[in-house]
């Protein structure tokens, strides 16, 4: 009786919902197309160029895989390269992808032998795991890369060329600084001038003391973003100045009793116990929101972090952030390499592109675009880098601040499962921040987990 009309209505309603969904899906699809609008244009230009050249160069597309919220800052270099080499179209993937996700995917692609780009970025902490898979990569020395050695800091070159096999060419290094919110410092009655701030903390103990002073002023905001970032920074710095390695010794054996780990751990625990940490999960949505609302006053700042901050904090916070020297002495965290997987159909062209993207000039370009600090001594000595200021960071002389330490950085050896083990220690620190575990329990737990991974 009344069943039939109801059913018709139900069907209509179902159709309506389905239509809405289809419309929504359509919307999703069209977005990337819109943002990729440049690609077809570029291809069209290439076609024109090809006709004019009347060369027999085949039209090819090279895919570059990068990671990180803002990518690697190569857009201008791509344009330049494509106009010089009209038969090549460059397509970049991965901007907006976190390192963890990027690397997991890359490992699968490399192992499967398909799906990876023609040029792929390998991060400092993850390049080590590919040492076991050198047969899956092109030896860039076969394409003339051996002559480029003098273009890179010696330790950077060695990291990228294990046993003389040129696996990757260095892009950037992550020398250390400390970024801070000058408005929050002012509110807490601390100096705001970057030289005065740098003078406040020559050691990490000083940094903790400043933090206590900040907390005492009761601004309602935290002193630092998360224990994990400052822990990583301190570990790399302490390891660089002492053992020269973190969780793995130079022979790739797990050494969790390395006193440098415990030293960085203990300092971090002290910061947590004194209530300095906001306890946010680094690189999470809330952490990003924290930059916008100014939930914390300082953040350990490898050179590449400046790009992360300006991206997350947005235009409204321009001029509020500033850069001071990092406490302690030197240190490096992060930085990447460009490699060419053996599966690439155009290894020669890909190798040429990787070399082009890592020339000293390209390093300067990427530094200007995103603040990624060059790993090339020529670029580090370049006036454009030395004189560079970062408008977003209150015109801080970032070239000087980051560049000063980069030339005499002490390299730190990282082992194959470095990232996975680092995550175990980060989780443990978070559990202390959240009050779920005591520092001793957390330490024991991190050691156990790490031993199971290694």
């Amino acid at each position, binding site marked *: 009786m009344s069943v039939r009309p109801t059913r018709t209505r139900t069907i209509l309603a179902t159709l309506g*919902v389905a239509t809405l969904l289809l419309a929504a899906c359509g919307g999703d699809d069209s977005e990337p197309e819109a943002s990729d609008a440049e690609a077809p244009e570029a291809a069209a230009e290439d076609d024109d160029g090809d006709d004019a050249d009347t060369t027999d160069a085949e039209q090819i597309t090279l895919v570059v895989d990068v990671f990180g919220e803002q990518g690697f800052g190569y857009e201008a270099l791509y344009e330049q390269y494509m106009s010089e080499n009209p038969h090549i179209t460059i397509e970049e993937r991965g901007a907006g992808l976190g390192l963890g996700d990027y690397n997991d995917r890359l490992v699968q692609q490399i192992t499967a032998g398909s799906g990876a780009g023609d040029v792929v970025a390998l991060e400092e902490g993850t390049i080590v795991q590919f040492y076991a898979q050198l047969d899956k990569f092109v030896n860039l020395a076969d394409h003339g890369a051996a002559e480029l050695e003098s273009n890179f800091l010696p330790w950077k070159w060695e990291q990228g060329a294990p046993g003389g096999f040129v696996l990757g060419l260095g892009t950037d290094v992550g020398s250390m600084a400390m970024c801070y919110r000058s408005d929050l410092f002012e509110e807490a009655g601390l100096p705001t001038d970057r030289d005065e701030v740098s003078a406040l903390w020559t050691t990490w103990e000083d940094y903790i003391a400043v933090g206590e002073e900040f907390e005492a002023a009761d601004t309602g905001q935290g002193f630092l973003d998360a224990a994990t970032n400052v822990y990583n920074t301190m570990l790399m710095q302490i390891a660089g100045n002492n053992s020269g390695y973190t969780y793995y010794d130079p022979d790739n054996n797990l050494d969790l009793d390395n006193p440098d780990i415990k030293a960085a751990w203990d300092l971090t625990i002290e910061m947590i116990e004194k209530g300095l940490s906001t306890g946010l999960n680094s690189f999470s949505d809330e952490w990003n929101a924290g930059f916008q609302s100014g939930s914390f006053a300082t953040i350990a700042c490898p050179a590449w972090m400046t790009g992360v901050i300006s991206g997350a904090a947005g235009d409204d916070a321009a001029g509020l952030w500033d850069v001071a020297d990092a406490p302690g002495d030197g240190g490096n965290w992060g930085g990447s390499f460009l490699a060419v997987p053996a599966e690439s159909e155009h290894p020669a062209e890909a190798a040429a592109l990787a070399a082009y993207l890592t020339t000293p000039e390209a390093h300067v370009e990427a530094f200007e675009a995103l603040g990624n600090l060059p790993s090339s001594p020529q670029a580090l000595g370049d006036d454009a880098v030395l004189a560079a200021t970062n408008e977003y960071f209150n015109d801080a002389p970032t070239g000087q601040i980051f560049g000063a330490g980069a030339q005499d950085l002490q390299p730190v050896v990282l082992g194959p499962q470095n990232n*996975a083990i680092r995550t175990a220690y980060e989780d443990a620190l978070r559990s202390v921040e959240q009050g779920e575990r005591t520092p001793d329990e957390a330490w024991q737990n991190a050691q156990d987990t790490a031993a*199971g991974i290694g």
Partner: protein
Amino acid sequence: MKDRADPHVSTAGGRPGGLRRPSWARLDQKISPYLYVLPFFVLFAIFGLYPLGYTVWISLTDQSPMSPETSFVGAENFTRLLEDSRFWNSVGNTIGMFIVATIPQLMMALILANWLNRRLRGIGFFRMAIAIPIVTSTAVVALVFGMFFARDYGLANGILEMFGMERIDWRASRWTSWMSIASMVDWRWTGYNALIYLAAMQAISRDMYEAAELDGASRMRQFWQITVPLLKPTIIFTVTISTIYGLQLFTEPLMFTSGSGALSGGSTGQFQTITMYLVQVMRTYHQWGYAGAIALVLFLLIVVMSAINFLLVRRISSDR
């Protein structure tokens, strides 16, 4: 089917130089059905059997992209699994979250279906409305709930504060994170189960209710003594499906944390499910052989849990 086909074979074979047409027709009759179902089995072999077999093989090795050679290690991965406290932690979390999420979910679905099984104005709209969450992507649900339960700016904490209560770091402790994740699962799946119950309820004859009403049975009594027993097969179905889904819970707890270390399922692994641990072992630790062993144990666990649930549900319904 085989029994019926066999005599045909013997008669066809036993007639030398028989008439062509009939034998072709018989052959057609015999083979065609297999050809019709073949596509499914070919696809099943490629996407079902082969991966399963490969998982069994890989679980007996130490394969890893980190080492160039793979060697056969026998049952080593399985013995390691037995002593792996992180694995058992993830089993506890998965079963715990399954119970916290599924029992109230099926109860609510049953009640919801009972409400919707009435003649009301615009009932079609309400019936459609409860289906909407099913068509929402899990990732979107998780993102929205992730923001809802955010520590500093989340709506949930905003409401708590409005009533003068303490903020809660939802992700920090076991119970709060389980509740948050269970709420995501329930929001999404309650309507789905309610629809299934509703369909089954509509098949129950009205006469039974009318008879019960004449005998003076209350609505509550009608529900428990007529509806629920007659829904028994449907309840078994939803419980089985929910068990399979619940034991594979992945997207909700994964998306519950953004940023680094999401696969760890919280700082102490307090909401890391079996599938999250599986993916972490495979993708982050690169221990593929061990991951294969976890996958197989998960498979067995689902079979066992489904069987237990089946027996439980059958028992409960027949008691009433």
